[in-house]
């Protein structure tokens, strides 16, 4: 790939990414799941289950809000991935993606453009929840560097989950199908340590949460907020993101090839 071609593709990714972010901010039905619902759930769960810190085996934390922040961020990225998939499917239904496929640009740049937008939304979510946490008394034990690391981890998670949303959108081509996966997001969340320590959950959810890749991502983000930077936690989080990301890339490639070959 020549430098000119690379530059052209980067321009496409930038333009489509910016379009994707604008699209999300303009449509309340895309924006609400990313920020509004996770914020409401964070507020309600913190107040509703806050006394859980009195349980004997609950880890030492400054407050339940500190513990819950990581879960809220990752919930937001999962929903950002789902919302991105819905928007992508709408583009397919409207024929916008077909016009892009006919243009002399890399097909992967089209998907990466969508994911660039999801990355930005992930960063917005991370900053939003860090701000809310700090306003309402949470502390980031990892300091400023830790906060930046949290933002990067959450942004990368959004890309990994966004890849799954894009793959499903490409394969199904219908927004209603991607929208139908919304409840699945909560199944995955409840079967992870996003909202509670895995060892304090009931079986079989507790065992599933121990091995759920989402738990590794949440724990990696949580470690930085609640304890301090842990290289082991960071490596596990990055490993889980890479695993989900690789799976997303594979699924997207297959779905893209299928769509280009069959046209639907």
């Amino acid at each position, binding site marked *: 790939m020549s430098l000119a071609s690379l530059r052209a593709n980067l321009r496409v990714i930038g333009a489509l990414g910016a379009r994707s972010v604008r699209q999300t901010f303009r449509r309340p039905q895309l924006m609400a799941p990313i920020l509004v619902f996770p914020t409401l759930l964070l507020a309600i769960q*913190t107040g509703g*289950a806050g006394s859980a810190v009195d349980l004997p085996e609950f880890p030492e934390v400054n407050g339940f809000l500190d513990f819950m922040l990581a879960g809220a961020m990752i919930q937001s990225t999962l929903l950002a991935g789902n919302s991105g998939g819905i928007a992508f499917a709408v583009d397919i239904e409207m024929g916008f993606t077909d016009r892009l496929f006919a243009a002399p640009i890399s097909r992967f740049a089209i998907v990466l453009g969508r994911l660039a937008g999801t990355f930005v939304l992930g960063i917005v979510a991370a900053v939003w929840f860090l701000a809310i946490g700090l306003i309402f008394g949470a502390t980031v034990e990892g300091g400023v560097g830790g906060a930046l690391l949290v933002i990067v981890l959450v942004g990368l998670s959004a890309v990994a989950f966004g890849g799954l949303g894009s793959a499903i959108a490409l394969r199904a081509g219908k927004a209603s199908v991607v929208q139908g996966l919304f409840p699945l997001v909560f199944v995955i969340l*409840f079967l992870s340590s996003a909202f509670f320590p895995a060892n304090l959950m009931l079986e079989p959810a507790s065992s599933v949460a121990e091995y759920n890749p989402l738990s590794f991502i949440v724990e990696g983000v949580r470690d930085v907020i609640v304890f301090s930077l842990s290289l082991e936690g960071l490596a596990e989080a990055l490993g889980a993101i890479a695993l989900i990301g690789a799976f997303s890339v594979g699924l997207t490639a297959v779905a893209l090839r299928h769509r280009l070959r069959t046209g639907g």
Partner: protein
Amino acid sequence: MEAATVAGRRLTRATLSAHAAMVWALVSRAGNEIVRVPGAAIPGVLAPTIFFLGLTAVFGNLTDLSGFPTDEYQSFIIAVSLLQGAGFTGAATGVNLARDIEQGWFDRLLVSPAPRSVLLSGLVLSASVRSLVPATLLLTIGFALGVDWPGVGGLLLALLLVMGMGTAAACWGVTLALHFKTQGAAPLMQAGMFVLILTTTAYAPLDRLTGWLQDVAEYNPLTQVVEAIRQGFVGDSLTWSETWPGVVVMIGLVALLGAFALRNMRRTSY
């Protein structure tokens, strides 16, 4: 004079009969939607079920803390899940109405000779009946997972209040649908019910709630409805003192939101 009275009575009967037929047609149409577009009903049924199972799995050990009236979290949380199911179903009525407005179908209803109150009755009555669908699934799964049997009285009270919640949520959804006239208002319809239901003693008893939520739950009237439903699942028997506040609150909520919906319905022109 007597003939006029008889004629007037006949007219009233005929009108009433026409109104009843209209309400029935709208309820049947909503019922048909479940059969013909099951995908549209699935989220409303699935979401509260997932929340019920998920919250039980995640927060199940909270009952180890003092102050919980039961050792089984599923028995504690089922009341909230039932109300959530009704809330989602009612909000879906608003989303469906917004869709009908966008597609022009609702305009055809507006030009019909049916009064607006009859149109509203058809919409909210259908939501009230439809709210029994998620309730049935939740109760079936709940009993299979060890939710305590509330007794016939407790079950009937729970179902009555669930239908009331479905009606109230539908009135809320209809109000917003008539105001915004777009399905884009769907998150607002859902979020309104979500907040109203979860800012109660949803997760824990009042004494175990923390921070702002404890204050809000204490004054949120829906807490009385949650407690009225919950008493059958966590206690030995129903008590009048825990029942009447919930029933009164539900009647008030339906009356208030119904008045808003009717006002918007009457203001809507085609």
